[in-house]
């Protein structure tokens, strides 16, 4: 039985570095989509997908509203919009108030994904300096999905994964070097 229908990765300060190291080692036939929500300054819009494209054979694109979410594709939340997931497995965008001083907010996408994918969801919270994503991981757990963090001791900015470790029952705490293999073994 399939246990992972989507992987959502959230991160803030210090998380880009993790992605740049992990993406090259992902297997090309990944049987689920990866949805990435990274805090960044508004305006640096197309830079992030472009940057990540160079690091993986997987298809990388910015998530667009109403777009169907497909396996083997890496979607990046656009800057200045919250990214939500509909029951029919398409994306919605939302330009409402910032959450945790952030838009896109990791909490918003984690919570929305949890309601749709329920126990077939894996969410991963990386390095960062605020607590965005922690409540989201709690929602993921309440739907029996899996909550993964970057090992705070291995993170450039440990605050975000450390907050998650304190407030959520974490399924795994990963060092950067083990992360790609972990993702490759999800199915």
């Amino acid at each position, binding site marked *: 039985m399939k246990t992972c229908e989507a992987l959502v990765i959230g991160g803030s300060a210090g998380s880009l570095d993790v992605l740049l190291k992990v993406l090259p080692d992902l297997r090309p036939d990944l049987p689920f989509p990866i949805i990435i929500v990274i805090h960044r300054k508004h305006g640096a819009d197309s830079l992030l997908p472009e940057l990540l494209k160079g690091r993986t054979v997987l298809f990388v694109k910015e998530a667009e509203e109403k777009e169907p979410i497909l396996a083997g594709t890496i979607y990046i939340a656009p800057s*200045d919009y919250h990214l939500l997931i509909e029951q029919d497995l398409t994306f919605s965008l939302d330009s*409402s108030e910032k959450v945790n001083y952030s838009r896109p907010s990791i909490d918003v996408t984690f919570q929305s994904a949890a309601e749709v994918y329920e126990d077939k969801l894996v969410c991963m919270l990386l390095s960062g300096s605020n607590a965005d994503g922690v409540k989201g991981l709690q929602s993921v757990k309440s739907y029996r999905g899996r909550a993964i963090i970057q090992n705070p001791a291995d993170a450039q900015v440990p605050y975000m994964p450390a907050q998650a470790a304190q407030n959520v029952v974490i399924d795994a705490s990963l060092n950067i070097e083990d992360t790609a293999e972990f993702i490759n073994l999800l199915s």
Partner: protein
Amino acid sequence: MEGTVITEDQIDLLLADLLERYGYDFTGYSRASLKRRIHRLYSIDKAVSFAEFRFKIANDPVYFKRFVEQITVNVTEMFRDPGFFKTLRNEVLPKLGTYPLIRIWIAGCSTGEEAYSICILLQELNLLHKSLVYATDLNPAVLEKAAQGMFGLSQMKQYSENYILSGGSKDFSSYYTAKYSLAKFNDDLRRKIIFSSHNLVSDRSFNEFQLILCRNVLIYFDRDLQHKVISLFDDSLEELGYLALGSKETLEFSTVSKRYRRLPNEKVWRKMT
């Protein structure tokens, strides 16, 4: 989203009530976002149970007003996406300047920041005297606020930066008077704006325009409603008029798109003859 989770069925019930009692149709809204807004209000207002929440919305018109105000998204700013306003300033509005009367429709104007921004551009291009800006929203509360032309003084630093990035060269503070924590925009900007209530879901075309702006509204609608609203805009737009959408919205999937040509780099389409 701690505690109660409102189910899809319960949302359906709420939406049916709203349509029956008040004639507001939210059934074509994108569900994930709508659901999130409803959850948010439910939790801010510390509703005791879904039954009570539903009863209050259906039977208390004051609370219904709050409900509409809270579940629709009213986040906006002046000169948001400066590049877009630069295109208006340098390309779109000068073309419209050849008309004897310029009619502009801002659909989903929220608290009016965009309407005042447009009027500043029109004034600087010396076109304001022959322009009419119709600014509409489904939400009466935001229209009241928009008509006052007062925005938070703390926002002015960012709006001024946006204004300069959009090609503005005046002193932005010359457009408003500071009053305590508010910036009151000059009345001469306000004179050419008509604020009025209009619901894109249920109301029809009410005029013909040379420029329609509807930015960050369609993202909250499902595909069917998006098509319906785009055809409403098509009916309301003169030939060679312009339609401007939000930075993540597109005309591409619509059947009317064949008749439109997009301006490079911006979400602005021109209706061809």
